[in-house]
């Protein structure tokens, strides 16, 4: 999805959004993305990737009940280490060029 601005990962699916047009594309969470999951995922129910809006970052949401999470964590791109930034960029590029 070339114009993706936000990515959500829940269970075994990657949900990609173009927030300007409300377009959405769904991709299976295959082992191709293990490099990203192994780095950023843990026990969260929803992993959300903001590519630029409002800022590049990864948010993880836990204990979601009635669409309200008990808590969430936020890792801004500027706070990532060098390896994490490479993984983040590689993952976003894979989604943008997904066939």
């Amino acid at each position, binding site marked *: 999805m070339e114009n993706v601005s936000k990515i959500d990962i829940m269970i075994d699916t990657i949900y990609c959004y173009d927030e300007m047009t409300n377009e959405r594309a769904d991709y299976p969470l295959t082992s191709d993305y293990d490099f990203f999951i192994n780095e950023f995922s843990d026990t969260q129910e929803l992993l959300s990737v903001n590519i630029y809006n409002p800022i590049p970052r990864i948010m993880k949401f836990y204990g979601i009940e009635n*669409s309200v999470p008990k808590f969430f964590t936020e890792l801004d791109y500027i706070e990532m280490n060098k390896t994490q930034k490479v993984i983040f960029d590689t993952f976003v590029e894979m989604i943008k060029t997904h066939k």
Partner: protein
Amino acid sequence: MANYKISQLTAYPNSTFLTTDIFEVSYYLGGVYYSRYLTGTQIFNTLQTKLVSGTSIKTINGNSLLGSGDLVISSGGGSGIFGISNSSGVYTYYATLTLAMAAAVSSNTIEMFANVTETGAVEITLKDGVNINGNGYTYTLNNSGTSNALKVTNSTTINCSILNLNVVRTGSTSAQSVNACIYSGTSTSGSIYLTSSKFTNTGSGSGIAIGTGSTISIYDGTSIANTSFGSIYIESSAGAKVYNSTGISTSQAGISCYLGGDLYNCTGISSSGIGIDGAGAATAGNQYNCIGISSTSSGFTSGLISVNCIGRSTSGNGISSISPSKVHGCVGISVSGRGISNVSSVIYNSQGISSSGVGFLIQTSTAILYNCLSKSDSSYSIWGWQNSSVYNSIIECKWNNAGGNGIQGISGFITSTIVNCLFKLSNATAPYLNNGGTAQAISMQGNTYQGGGAFNANLTQAIVATEDNQGNIFL
């Protein structure tokens, strides 16, 4: 000869008892012997011939009454899967629902006494005034064709109840709006109560479907299906209504108002589809006191008018208002999507709340907020496009970040009219209004600002008039 009997007499050969013969017995009374007798005519005219089952004595449900033992009779004289009782409580039983429905007349209730599976193209046509009580049993139609399990014939009026019945429609593959568990055909009218009944479609159709031109009212149903039409599907734009019902789907809409339809106190639940799709292909219906829930899509999309509704989503929008509509007193909640995504609607007294997305998106010149609350935990509070307007609203951003803006413009254009609003920000450097450095004149009047920094320097006041002595101003 007293106290003696005659015995060992030899019958006269080939003789038969004649009507003129006399059968005589003697008896002793008061020391005197008397006799009594029957004539042959009396014997032949009064005694029963030997009983022959099914010939001279009837059977019950094929069971002979001859012989010893007990023949158990239940419920007034029979048994069967479907029964209709008369005014005395005596049941007549039927082997199939088709037969029972054919025999039923208005005010009858067909009761079900066992689970049933039909594999043919069996479609039960509901009758006006004929109710069904499933007694908790399951009626299954397993057929690959397009038959509905239950149907209201096109252009008919019906008033009936289907109570305590599980209807399963399975095996269908045709992508049509039929193949449903229950389908109210085109131009139908009346009311159907589905209290405590559940309609599950594991094939290609809906659980509950309403055809074009129908004004039918459906009450109290629960539907489970994964068809693209939606678990509860309303194709009618003529005023069909659904009350107190729940539509559940994993991949498609829980309830879909495709061309219209009014929902009252309904709940739509979906995993990756829309909880309640009130907009459908044409925004022509209304929703009152409804709840739409989704994991990855919008919880609720508004129709012409949506009142006191709730939309919840994990990664989608809590409420999406796509086509021009009016939204009153609604709440949109999302984890990573927008609380309320308002493309072109007028929204009153509503709340848009998101954890990582914006509280509200207001995207076009016809998008207006009155008396609303917009709240975000970690994004802008409002994402607003040029010529949109916000009046008398609370704009709250709890994101303690320099990007935790009150209203953020879209591609260099920002909300044009902001009147009597309260801005509450959490970061002292975050701008109340941010248009990304692009210059724009906007109308701002009577606003209160708390917690943030100054709004974007390139934004200027578009209001040229001043208040009169009574505080009125021309915007």
